[in-house]
């Protein structure tokens, strides 16, 4: 582990990679602040920029964007009561009331320190858990991979949210359907290509990611009238960013508690930062009791600290299944997985052995990135917040241009732009019908590998399915898959009682 850590330090601490962390944190913070554009959109928009970078720098940049966007999301939650992403919705509950009481600077500082501690605890967890899990996963063969991917898909879909489980499964299947387009691995013949040569290599991951997360989001911001003109931001004051000793004492215990719970929730595929933030807020509110002063929802600093450290720890925790098993735990890490595949890397245990510099440099960059968010982004927050004054009628066309260029520059095929528009319209329709899109992306990425590993397993076992119960690891994961599939049903039965 120490040898790996040294490799990581050596790779992450090159001037260029430090620049990538800074750029990622800064860009992520800015995009994350924009209402409607969360970490997934921010990471998707950065993918085209990473194509000419080496894989370590690319992943470091995207990781920086990821936690920068989470940080930016909390900033807009506190300053303008508009969460930049779903994981910072809870921050509005107490963060905005604090801002209304003239304590915007304090709320931002609490959010930043809590995020920092959560991020560092998450990074330590990642440092310890990832190599152990990767060593275990190195013994895996096709049956285990098949069982693991089925488990990942079941977990993400079953944790899609209240009332969205079936829709989550439907989207995961639609994603897998999209993955079947292209050359068939068994016969080598084109499959579902409608005779078009452009589709022989399959659909572009970036096209799907840009269409579902970036272009569809721009269209929804307009259709749902979420565009601000920037005028209402002028009144926000975020100058005094100091915390008193009492403030630190107040938030120390919640931050310690929820950094650990956040990390553990983040490690679970599908749970992610949003679940972590809501759960930690609910737990902290319960612990504080009804006599908390100020009350939760009226500007209690613990109501800002708990979700902020939990969501950052969970964001870092979600890298554990991504890096060690190749299973993304959220939409954002699914996009990162796709980007890594585009770089010719297969995340999973082989990454740990074959590209230790990528594996370890990402972990090391987490420490660096969290420090940068605190040391550089926090003091710049009042300046960054001024960027929110730029009307969205100017910002949205720039985001749109990023989508267009991003998709075109991957293939240099103008047809891809039209296909992106069609997929985006489809995605907007699905979003309006309350279908979650993260399982679609996950199904698209994992679908091909799932089919490939199932085929290999069936060949190994002469067409029989006994590999699911004869191999211990595959058996455990199959049971987990069944539990994930049954969980929503049992929850419904419990509610019915």
């Amino acid at each position: 582990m120490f040898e790996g850590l040294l490799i990581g330090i050596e790779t992450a601490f090159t001037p260029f990679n430090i620049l990538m962390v800074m750029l990622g944190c800064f860009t992520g913070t800015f995009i994350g602040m924009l209402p409607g554009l969360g970490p997934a959109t921010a990471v998707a928009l950065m993918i085209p920029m990473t194509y000419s970078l080496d894989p370590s720098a690319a992943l470091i940049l995207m990781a920086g964007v990821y936690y920068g966007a989470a940080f930016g999301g909390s900033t807009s939650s506190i300053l303008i009561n508009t969460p930049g992403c779903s994981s910072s919705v809870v921050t509005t509950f107490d963060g905005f009331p604090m801002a209304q009481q003239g304590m915007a600077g304090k709320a931002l500082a609490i959010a930043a320190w809590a995020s920092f501690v959560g991020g560092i605890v998450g990074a330590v967890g990642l440092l310890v858990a990832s190599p152990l899990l990767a060593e275990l996963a190195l013994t895996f063969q096709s049956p285990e991979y098949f069982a693991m991917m089925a488990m990942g898909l079941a977990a993400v879909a079953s944790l899609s949210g209240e009332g969205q489980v079936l829709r989550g499964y439907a989207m995961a299947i639609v994603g897998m359907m999209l993955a079947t387009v292209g050359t068939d691995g068994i016969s080598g013949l084109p499959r579902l290509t409608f005779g078009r040569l452009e589709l022989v290599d399959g659909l572009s991951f970036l096209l799907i990611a840009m269409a579902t997360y970036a272009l569809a989001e721009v269209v929804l911001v307009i259709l749902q009238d979420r565009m601000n003109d920037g005028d209402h931001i002028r009144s926000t004051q975020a100058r005094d960013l100091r915390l008193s000793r009492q403030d630190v004492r107040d938030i120390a215990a919640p931050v310690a508690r929820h950094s650990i719970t956040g990390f553990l929730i983040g490690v679970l595929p599908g749970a992610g930062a949003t679940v972590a933030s809501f759960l930690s807020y609910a737990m902290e509110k319960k612990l504080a009791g009804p006599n908390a002063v100020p009350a939760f929802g009226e500007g209690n600093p613990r109501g800002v600290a708990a979700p902020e450290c939990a969501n950052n720890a969970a964001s870092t925790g979600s890298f554990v299944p991504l890096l060690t098993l190749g299973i993304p735990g959220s939409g954002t890490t699914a996009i990162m997985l796709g980007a890594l595949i585009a770089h010719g890397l297969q995340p999973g245990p082989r990454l740990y052995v074959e590209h230790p510099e990528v594996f370890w440099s990402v972990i090391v960059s987490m420490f660096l990135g969290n420090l940068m968010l605190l040391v550089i982004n926090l003091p710049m927050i009042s300046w960054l917040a001024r960027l929110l004054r730029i009307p969205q009628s100017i910002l949205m066309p720039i985001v749109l241009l990023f989508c267009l260029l991003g998709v075109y520059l991957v293939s240099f095929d103008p047809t891809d732009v039209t296909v992106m528009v069609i997929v985006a319209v489809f995605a907007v329709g699905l979003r309006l019908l309350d279908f979650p899109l993260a399982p679609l992306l996950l199904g698209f990425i994992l679908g091909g590998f799932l089919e490939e590993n199932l085929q290999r397993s069936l060949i190994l076992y002469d067409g029989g399915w006994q590999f699911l119960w004869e191999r211990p690891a595959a058996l455990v994961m199959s049971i987990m898959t069944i539990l994930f599939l049954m969980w929503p049903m049992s929850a419904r039965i419990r509610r019915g009682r």
Partner: protein
Amino acid sequence: MTARLPGLVVLVIAGLYGWQALQIPVFAADAREAMTAQTMPLVLAGALSIIGVTLLFPHKSGVSLVSTLSADYRRWWQAFGLLTVCIVFGLVIEPLGVLSASALALLASLLVLGVRHRPTLLWVPLLVSAALWALLVGLLGLYLDPGSLWIADV
């Protein structure tokens, strides 16, 4: 009817995909294998159909986000306009080149979103597309075709 719409959409997707899956050719030699090129697509179509049927009979009405849509028809025109700009961008990028097509796409998008301030309409497209071009060509080292229209003129 609105409550059954998600189920109907899923069933239509499953039906169309399943029909296409049946058209996938399978070699006679492969037909006896446990898994052919058709297997996974047909399993997926079947699973999606089951979910579609289940969604047709929701135990409670789902959260439709349709009600969050703006009643202002101008927003719909703006969204439609932006998507049209995207398609036109795809059509003109090869003749015009990345730099000119980007600047024009930005200008058109700003106009669609109601920006009428002339300095903004001039400087935002010029500066943003020039900065992006410099980033792609200068920093990331990509070769960007100047556009067939300009090459033909030379």
